[in-house]
């Protein structure tokens, strides 16, 4: 897939709805930070040296052909329009940091968009593998083999005692950050979310979610990620995440089952209303859309409605973001026009 196709389609490897435990785990992401020994870290680089880093990585990427890791394609951030750059963020392929001072930055994508490499973000290289469902081990193995191939050409900043050296000392050692995007509507509805999340954070993982008024998170989407990067192996870090995830998955499922058993009419009503609004509304804000998508997803996972393909809701989540709406309508949109456009798009996709 070329970069132009990437910024034209909401679909990505991680949105397919495949992967284990996909009723709760939307996606698994593993990211590692790497730096080149001979250059200062990106925030200390001159424009000229930043370009040299890009050249060095470009050379390494060219050397990956026929190494069994697929085709990698590099694109300078300056080659993209602002909307296209923002779409890469909305698709979770790059971080917003890559948009700042973008002329000194580049991105490498593989064919199915499961792997992306950000160049000159906080570190020279940030390799990321993003897969649907619970697939942290798989993501790490894919990433590690690409890392190995690149390292044949690149001299990494590595210290025997401290491991991979990173711009921020919070990433030093393995340089690994593993995270899971979780959909937890059941726990939210039975008011157990804060308990579960504070337990998880006590175990040394960061938990985040966007809270609207009160305690309900918009879209009931949460992210957990590891905090520790030094002193444990990558496998241990990931195994720890997976075992915590399994506990969250189990409690989310039992909350859903309890809701379905004891408040079935309420649940059917909730899902039916979401379906009705999304199919007929004329103006939908992004916050409302996220809430309704969550209800719809829950309805599908509880078999209350079965007409929705597994990947559609995740794709809609991306498609209804601002840059995507802009790209599809081909012109600037006011916030109001955006809400109208969003509603129209949802109606079409659910028709």
């Amino acid at each position, binding site marked *: 897939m070329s970069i132009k196709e990437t910024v034209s389609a909401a679909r990505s490897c991680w949105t397919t709805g495949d992967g284990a435990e996909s009723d709760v785990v939307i996606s698994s992401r593993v990211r590692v930070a790497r730096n080149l*020994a001979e250059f*200062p870290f990106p925030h200390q680089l001159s424009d000229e040296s930043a370009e040299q880093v890009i050249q060095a990585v470009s050379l390494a990427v060219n050397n990956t052909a026929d190494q069994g890791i697929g085709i990698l394609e590099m694109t300078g951030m300056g080659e993209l329009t602002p909307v296209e750059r923002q779409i890469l963020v909305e698709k979770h392929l790059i971080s917003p940091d890559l948009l700042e001072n973008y002329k000194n930055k580049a991105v490498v994508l593989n064919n199915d968009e499961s792997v992306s490499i950000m160049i000159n973000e906080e570190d020279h290289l940030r390799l990321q593998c993003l897969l649907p469902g619970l697939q942290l081990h798989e993501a790490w193995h894919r990433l590690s083999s690409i890392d190995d191939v690149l390292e044949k050409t690149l001299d990494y900043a590595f*210290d*025997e005692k401290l491991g*991979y050296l990173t711009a*921020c*000392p919070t990433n030093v050692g393995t340089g690994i950050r593993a995270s899971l995007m979780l959909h937890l509507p059941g726990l939210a509805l039975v008011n157990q979310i804060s308990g579960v999340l504070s337990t998880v954070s006590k175990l040394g993982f*960061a938990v985040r979610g966007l809270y609207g008024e009160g305690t309900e998170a918009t879209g009931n989407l949460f992210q957990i990620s590891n905090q520790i990067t030094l002193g444990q192996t990558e496998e241990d870090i990931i195994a720890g995440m997976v075992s915590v995830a399994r506990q969250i998955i189990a409690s989310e499922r039992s909350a859903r089952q309890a809701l379905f058993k004891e408040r079935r009419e309420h649940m059917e009503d909730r899902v039916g209303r979401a379906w009705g609004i999304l199919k007929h509304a004329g103006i939908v804000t992004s916050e409302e859309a996220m809430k309704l998508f969550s209800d719809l997803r829950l309805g599908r996972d509880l078999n209350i409605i079965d007409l929705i393909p597994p990947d559609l809701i995740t794709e809609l989540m991306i498609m209804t*973001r601002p840059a995507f709406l802009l790209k599809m309508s081909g012109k600037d949109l006011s916030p109001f026009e955006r809400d109208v456009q969003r509603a129209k798009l949802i109606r079409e996709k659910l028709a």
Partner: protein
Amino acid sequence: MECERCKQRPATVHLTQIINNQKKTMNLCEPCAREFQTENFGFLPQMNLHNLLAGLFHHQLTNPFGQQGIQQAVSEGEICPRCGLSERRFAQQGLLGCGECYSKFGDKLEPVFRRIHGNNRHTGKVPERTGGKVKITNQINKLKNSLKEAVEREEFELAAQFRDQIKELEKKLGGEENACVN
């Protein structure tokens, strides 16, 4: 309540993050919250960690001198000979400037590592090529010390052995360097 970020619109969204069991709430207007969410979606809020780090470092910097006498000492602190990053800038931004910074500020970073990671020694992946080089370099440095000691003790036969070993290893190091595409 006004939005913490733009300080213009009223705050209607309350974003809660839990990091290291510390609950932190941000009060934002909807546009800013949306932006913040997009920005942080899938990525860690490094800012908080930077603050912690800068706090720790600043604490170490200022503590021995008390509140008043610190002006001089804090001005820039030590400076990395390779990239020019000063301790003060590190404390401000929470980012090191280059690999060399780790050796330059190493002693001071030690407690930072312990606080963040509970550990100060890497046990994970070692890069195939660079890792091998690191090992050889360490071996060479060790042998150089032994060589120096042997010379001091006037054990010249032993010293010659060390010298040969160093030469061998340096050849290996150079050979590897040539083998890689530059």
